[in-house]
């Protein structure tokens, strides 16, 4: 060649054999079963078929949090002896509707842990305005309620 390049001896005559060997190796690695085996990773049966379902249930987990928060408020209100009437949007109930005295009395008797009510205060669109003093209800009571509600929610959605 005019370029000055040269080839190793027998390069061209050996090329096809080397190419076939490489293609054989590559074709094996393209078979999906072999790919799984070579990585060492396994997945549960039908994982990808169920994957979409899992995404849906993850979304509903967000809804669950909201439902739980509302349920907790409901149990709090029931504990305080307040009964709700069905209400329209113009009649939405607020914590400010509760008698301060009733709340204070309950707080004095039971106590509330801050973290239990974080769920409520983080909910931006809530109409509930939490009074700092409310954050002292018996944690065990609420957690028991959460646990029962969670069991119910999962049972419905499975």
């Amino acid at each position, binding site marked *: 060649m*005019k*370029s*000055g*390049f*040269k080839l190793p001896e027998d390069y*061209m005559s050996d*090329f096809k054999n080397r*190419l076939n060997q*490489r293609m054989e190796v*590559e074709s094996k690695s393209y078979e999906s079963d072999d790919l799984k085996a070579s990585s060492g990773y396994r997945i549960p049966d039908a994982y990808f078929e169920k994957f979409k379902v899992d995404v849906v249930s993850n979304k509903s987990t967000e809804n669950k949090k909201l439902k739980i928060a509302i349920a907790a408020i409901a149990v709090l209100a029931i504990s305080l002896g307040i009964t709700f009437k069905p209400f329209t949007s113009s009649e939405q109930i607020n914590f400010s509707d509760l008698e301060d005295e009733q709340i204070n009395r309950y707080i004095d008797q039971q106590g509330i842990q801050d973290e239990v009510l974080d769920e409520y205060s983080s909910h931006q669109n809530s109409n509930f305005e939490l009074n700092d003093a409310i954050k002292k209800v018996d944690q065990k009571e609420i957690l028991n309620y959460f646990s029962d509600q969670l069991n119910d929610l999962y049972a419905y959605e499975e």
Partner: protein
Amino acid sequence: MSKNEPHIEEDERLLVKRLQSESDKQLAFDQLVDRYKEPLYWHIRHMVKHHEDADDVLQNTFIKVFRYIDGFKAQSKLYSWMYRIATNESNTFLTKKAKRLKLSSQELQDHLTENLKSDPYFEGGAIEYQLHKAVDALPEKQQLVFKMRYFQDLKFKQISEILNVSVTSLKTNYHHAQKKIKKQLGSY
């Protein structure tokens, strides 16, 4: 017909048909490799410069050809389709190499040419070395045209089919490339 000029037309059409058939694919592929390994090797070698790299890229090219031959619609000639794959594979290889060595594409060309001095598969003297340096200095398109015409003896018509560029444009590019190279090699 030069020794690097691929066989074409009817023979090629039959070969494609066999390559796309399940029963005859492997045999036809062996025939394809025998026919095109050498012209494709030289095309790649002039782009990547070093033998080991050219060997890698040539294998990748044939693997791609084998993998995608079923989708080949014969809208272009088989050899021009294969040359395009080889060109793309070479460019991809060079881009990755430049990235790995943290060099610009021009710096990589200089680096590859510099390394020819110690390459056991380069037997050129000072003139050939200077020729490669002069080719490196050309714009990318002129480089490609010059290498295909001068080193590989491809006809302008063939280059036109491979690069999908008019023959007139190729001749202009080649003319400019030749002129620049002659000027640079003037002292030799």
